[in-house]
């Protein structure tokens, strides 16, 4: 490869050609990166189906992602529900339709806020840790050690994280929804004096099964996105401590962006 640089390249003298080829190089790099990510996910999922199976690794990941994020999810959910009820109440009061408060809180939680906020909280808490953990294993050559012991590092590191996330995050989302509705109940009924029959009765009437399955489907897809991006970024991190730091940051940024964009696309497709 070294002698290639010394060959004089004909026709690359003009600055316009330089710009065009740098655009081409950038495009090729993005396409290659996307292909690499797709291959990563494909093999991580395929390796789940192949022995040796280690359910204990998946259980550890459910513990880390699900149980570990539970307290922050509960806190976020409670206050989201409370603030939704507070804001919704004053808006609906202007039209004399406070009775719709329960429906407004439940629908916004179940359809949008539950899946999205859960995914974002999990990204911040577990996704970053996931990227850092795998990244450090890569730079300290523990991954090479695994390879030399004939353990597939993808199967050992990425697959259980993706599987654990797909199992844990939808459950966290369901807990988020219920706790958020309870938070709305605290503010709407206990603080602002709505009757609890109005709050829950109207909600039961308006929330359809398709809203709930849509929300859970969303959180399944977000779970896949977050765990996939985080373990990918860790697995292909750069050199040294700086590389791990960058991998962690870009895992969180890319997961967040994908979740937010994905949410818009899914909403327009689902409802």
């Amino acid at each position, binding site marked *: 490869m070294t002698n290639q640089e010394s060959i004089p390249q004909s026709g690359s003298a003009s600055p316009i050609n330089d710009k065009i080829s740098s655009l081409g190089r950038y495009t090729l790099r993005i396409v290659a990166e996307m292909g690499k990510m797709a291959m990563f996910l494909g093999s991580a999922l395929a390796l789940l189906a192949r022995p040796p199976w280690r359910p204990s690794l998946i259980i550890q990941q459910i*513990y880390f992602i699900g149980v570990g994020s539970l307290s922050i999810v509960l806190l976020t959910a409670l206050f989201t529900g409370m603030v939704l009820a507070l804001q919704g109440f004053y808006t609906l009061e202007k039209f004399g339709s406070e009775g719709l408060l329960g429906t407004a809180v439940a629908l916004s939680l179940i359809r949008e806020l539950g899946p999205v906020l859960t995914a974002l909280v999990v990204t911040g808490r577990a996704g970053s840790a996931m990227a850092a953990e795998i990244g450090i294993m890569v730079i300290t050559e523990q991954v090479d050690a695994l390879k030399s012991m004939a353990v597939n590092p993808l199967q050992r590191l990425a697959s259980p994280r993706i599987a654990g996330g797909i199992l*844990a995050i*939808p*459950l*966290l989302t*369901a807990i988020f929804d219920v706790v958020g509705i309870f938070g709305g109940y605290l503010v709407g009924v206990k603080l602002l004096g709505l009757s609890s029959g109005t709050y829950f009765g109207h*909600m039961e009437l308006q*929330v*359809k*099964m398709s809203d709930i399955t849509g929300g859970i489907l969303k959180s399944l897809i977000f779970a896949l996105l977050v765990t996939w991006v985080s373990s990918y970024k860790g697995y292909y991190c750069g050199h040294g401590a700086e590389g791990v730091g960058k991998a962690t940051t870009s895992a969180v940024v890319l997961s967040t962006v994908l979740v937010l964009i994905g949410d818009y696309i899914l909403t327009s497709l689902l409802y």
Partner: protein
Amino acid sequence: MSQRGIEFIVGVFVLSGIAALGYLSIQLGGLDLLGAGKYDITAKFSTVSGLRVGASIEMSGVKIGRVQKIILIGEDALVSLQLDNSIKLSRDSIASIRTKGILGDKYILLSQGGSDTLIKPGGKIRDTEPPIDIEKLIGDFIFGKVK
């Protein structure tokens, strides 16, 4: 923490997640797992304007079921009503579509008839009243059709 301890806590987490999911689907989503304790009857209306699937069915102001399905048959709307098993309707019961308040949701009001024969599961309510069209009433009033 020991592996056993982790497994136990994960078990508790999964159970509480499933409980939350169950509450959402059964209580709010109206998911009927076994269809137990409920039966369906149908009623034909000339229009069901404003009535939605999932709307409540009431008798004397008490909720006794919900609208299961609305389909168009010829020029009429056929509504499937899902009622609690404890409700026995006589054959000449009347189903009318009403509004909660002036601008509220539409619901179906069932009034019990006097006949001794009951409507069987899968049967049909003969007497129905379509919703009152408030806009048409106001229009008739303004343009002087009401004498």
